[in-house]
Every structure is written in C-alpha cells, then in structure tokens.
C-alpha cells in the first residue's frame, strides 16, 4: 500500500485500478463506521445492567457477611473457619461464550450453586444453624458475583473491540483514503498533461504542413 508517488505508473489502467480501490475502501469505511456505532450502542445497553448488578452484589454480600458474623458469635470464629475449611464438594463453573456483534463475551454458569446442608462438608454436630444460614446467604452472594463478573467482562471486551474498530475507522479516514485520492489526482494530472502535449504536437505538425 505504501508506495511512493514516484513509483506509480501514471497510466489509464492504473487509474482504473485506483478508482476501484477507492470505491472498495470507502464501502469498507462505511461498514466499519456502522460497526463502531453498533458496538457503542451495545456497550451502553450492557452498561445499564452494571449499576444494578453491582448494587445487588453489595446488598446480598453485605447480608452474607452479617450472617457470618452471627455464626462467629454463636460458635466462635475459629470453629467457623474450621468448618469452612472442610469446603465439601468443589464448586464448578462453566464459562461459555455468546456473541455480541462478533465479540465473544462470556456467560458464566455455576453447576449446583445451592447445596444441601449435608453437601457442604462440615460436621453438622459441631456447627450451629447460623452457619447454615450464612452458607446459604453466601451462595446467593456468589450468584450475584458471577452475574457481576459476566457483565464487567462483557463491558471490558466490548470496550476493547470498540477501541480497535475506532482505530481502524480513523486510519481509513485519515490515512488510507487520502493517500488513494492523492494517487488518483496524480495520475489524472499526468494523463491530462500527456493529452495537452499531444494536442499541441498535432497543432504544430498541422502548422508545419500547411
């Protein structure tokens, strides 16, 4: 693409080629501009969900912490930590992707987030009911966290793609298209010059013959 003006053959064929290239590039530019605008719209769409997701996470997590403190009061923080260390079955999540405007964004799903008391791994004899409640609250909080993570990550990816598209749009608008236009003008001028030379030559010859 980056050819110096002096290396261009100012011929009619080259002119046609350049004209075709300009049409193609301009079409690509329009499409990219549309993509950029669509991405920005999607970004704002998802952004409206962010505030809610954050608030919800803060709320349920706050509740979960309160329940956990109550459990610590009831059975002592050491016992709570001991019970927590048992963990039971490891929690698994699935991260699938879906596509927004060709950007692959994550969809996080937890397998079996809510567990029965017996599945949590800690001894039921040595723990109090407060701990069960705290665990339940934390399950809810985790669900909110997963949603929040999904939304934040989606925004991050959309922002990055928007930025990249913006850069391409700018480079087409400010570099590629102007350069093609310059080449086109250069060839046109050269061809016109040839034409004038030829015309003049014919006139001269005509004058000499007459």
């Amino acid at each position, binding site marked *: 693409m980056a050819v110096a003006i002096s290396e261009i053959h100012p011929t009619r064929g080259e002119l046609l080629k350049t004209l075709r290239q300009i049409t193609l590039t301009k079409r690509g530019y329009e499409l990219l501009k549309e993509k950029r605008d669509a991405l*920005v719209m999607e970004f704002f769409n998802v952004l409206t969900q*962010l505030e809610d997701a954050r608030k919800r996470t803060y709320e349920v997590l706050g509740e979960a912490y309160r329940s956990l403190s109550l459990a610590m009061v009831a059975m002592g923080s050491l016992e709570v930590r001991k019970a927590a260390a048992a*963990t039971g079955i*490891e929690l698994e999540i699935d991260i699938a992707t879906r596509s927004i405007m060709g950007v692959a964004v*994550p969809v996080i799903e937890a397998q079996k987030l809510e567990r029965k008391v017996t599945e949590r791994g800690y001894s039921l004899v040595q723990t109090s009911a407060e701990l069960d409640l705290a665990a339940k609250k*934390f399950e809810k909080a*985790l669900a909110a966290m997963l949603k929040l993570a999904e939304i*934040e990550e989606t925004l991050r990816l*959309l*922002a990055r793609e928007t930025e990249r598209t913006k850069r391409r749009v700018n480079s087409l608008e400010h570099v590629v298209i102007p350069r093609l236009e310059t080449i086109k003008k250069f060839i046109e001028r050269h061809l016109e010059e040839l034409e004038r030379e030829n015309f003049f030559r014919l006139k001269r010859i005509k004058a000499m013959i007459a």
Partner: protein
Amino acid sequence: MRIAAIGDQTTVAGLRLVGIREAHVASTGEDAERKFEELLGAEGVGLIVITETLAEGMRQRLLRFAERKAAVPIVVEIPDKLGPLPKKVDIIKKLARRAVGVEVLK
C-alpha cells in the same frame, strides 16, 4: 472450571463455605499479588474473586491485566465485610472513557 479467591479471613471463610476450595488469605497488596500470579499459572481457574481492599493494593497489576487477550481467568472485585470502597480507579469506567470518548459512569 474452578473459582479461586483472594481475600481477608472472613471473606475467605464465607467463600469456602460455598465450595470454593482455592480461597487464599492475603493481608497486604503484595501478598495478594503473589497469590494472584500463582493463580494465573494454575490450570483450570476460570474466575478469580478479589476483595476490593486487596485489589486496591495491587491496582497497577490489575490494570495491566485488564489489557490481556486471554478469555480466562476473569477477575471480579467484591467488597469485604466493611462494605464497598469508594473506588479511586474503576477499570470499567476507564475503559469506557477510552472507547466511547465520554464520561459514562458517575
């Protein structure tokens, strides 16, 4: 995939209750950053949960992490038991400003 977490003792206890085995206690930002690097190297970690206080202590690393190409792990920051921090640097806000060119979040 698994979830991993870095937090204070209370947060870690809470998360362990719901079956997150890889919940690590960290006390300082540097400590958290070390754990974070370890988790990045680990196989099958899909999500890393970090408490905001610790995240604030390793902010530069997280900002750099936000530029990554890899899809996983995803990082999410959550408040600790003292509640949400007034954020000095909101990564999403920063990205949004760069992409859209205007301030979008208050």
